[in-house]
């Protein structure tokens, strides 16, 4: 029993607004990925550093990021910090929330990738005259990023989909936020959300295909 007449025209009339939202969604996802990768590399280095404190920090970060819902992490960025008087805008809350999550997951991916690189690589690099940092930066890191490339693509897709959680912290400029605003205005729920789902699908599809092309180009033997 589904008593509903679809009015696609009304939804398509709102498409420009939705595409503007999609651009914001992309912006958040890309920024959160760039920051997330940098942080994840830092966390990985913390773990390798041998310092107890640094590796404890890294482990705690990964534990919290991986074992609590992303919704909770984003909510905490806004209302959790807010209760201490630190007010982040919705954009920053969602961006930092997703970045936190990305960094946690990617650090684990990087750790797994590192395990797949034989230790002889480091030793060979060192014997060729690289310092500790040089051996990591020039020999180990590129291989690590290569092994972790597909999981990184995965995380990017995940980051895009997570932007939809922004509505919980007052975000209304991203794709999901725009659609929800329009829904309240028109009650054309099914058309609007169907259209949004297609846009989400297309974005993530473009990214996975793009990543595959980049991988084919970068990682040729």
């Amino acid at each position, binding site marked *: 029993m*589904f008593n509903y007449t679809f009015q696609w025209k009304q939804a398509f009339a709102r498409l420009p607004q939705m595409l503007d939202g999609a651009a914001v969604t992309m912006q958040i996802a890309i920024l959160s990925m760039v920051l997330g990768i940098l942080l994840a590399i830092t966390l990985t280095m913390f773990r390798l550093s041998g310092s107890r404190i640094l590796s404890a920090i890294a482990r705690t970060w990964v534990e919290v990021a991986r074992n609590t819902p992303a919704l909770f992490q984003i909510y905490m960025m806004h209302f959790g910090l807010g209760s201490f008087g630190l007010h982040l805008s919705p954009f920053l809350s969602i961006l930092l929330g997703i970045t936190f999550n990305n960094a946690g997951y990617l650090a684990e991916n990087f750790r797994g990738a590192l395990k797949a690189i034989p230790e002889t690589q480091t030793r060979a690099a060192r014997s060729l005259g690289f310092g500790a940092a040089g051996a990591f930066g020039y020999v180990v890191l590129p291989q690590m990023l290569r092994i972790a490339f597909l999981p990184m693509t995965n995380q990017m897709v995940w980051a895009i989909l997570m932007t939809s959680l922004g509505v919980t*912290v007052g975000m*209304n400029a991203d794709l999901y936020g725009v659609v929800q605003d329009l*829904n309240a205005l028109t009650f054309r729920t099914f058309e609007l959300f169907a259209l949004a789902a297609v846009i989400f699908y297309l974005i993530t599809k473009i990214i996975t295909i793009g990543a595959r092309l980049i991988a084919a180009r970068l990682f040729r033997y």
Partner: protein
Amino acid sequence: MNHKFVVGLLAAAAFAAPAQADKLDDIIASGTLRCAVVLDFPPMGMRDENNNPIGFDVDYCNDLAAALGVKAEIVETPFPERIPALMSGRVDVGVASTSDTLERAKTVGMTIPYFAFEMAVTANDKSGVKSFEDMKGKTVGATAGTFEAIALEKQVQEWGEGTFRPYQTQADVFLALSQGQLDATVSTSTVAQSNVKTGNFPGISVVGKAPFDIDYVALFTDRHEYGLLNYLNLFVNQQVRTGRYAELYEKWVGGDLPDLTVSGVYR
């Protein structure tokens, strides 16, 4: 005429091609009226300490079920999910403080108004907002999907300065306001009073009225269910006529009873 033939004819008349059952029939036959109610909207819909739904809308649904001679079932529905709940057949009627905008009436069928809200401005005490006009240029917010959110967002665009933020629930709006993430909010005056009164949100106070139109809210159901809409309209009328509307208003809200008619025009 053959006796058996007559019986057969009567049986055929009774069972073959019955008049098409509409939603009103379905509700009466099923013995249950399922109402979409927003339970994050005190005093219209909320939960008591035992987690049971209570509030004006809950009582209104119970009254409606009693009038129909069926059992009431309260289906908790957040504001943005009212229409999906109706369209997917999870609820029969929305008793969910739904503003009867023309835009929305293109999608669902609205009854005559059963309640009317006035809008109030609630501000964080440190924000310096003392009236509606003071909100210009400030960070303001409201509950996503409500009449006041739509009106306030439009107002912020007209002012051309300041920021509008919609939050998912009324509780989040007041939390953000209390933390100072929002300078002020516009909500129905009933919600504003009842949230300030709880003491859960320190540092906020109701500072004045918002000059938005009176927010008339209607019951809603499927647009083409005229039988049911007709019944609902009569029910709303009877609630006022019998004094039950005034009684419920006194019980949940108190103060001056809002008039549900507009002068100078029919319906």
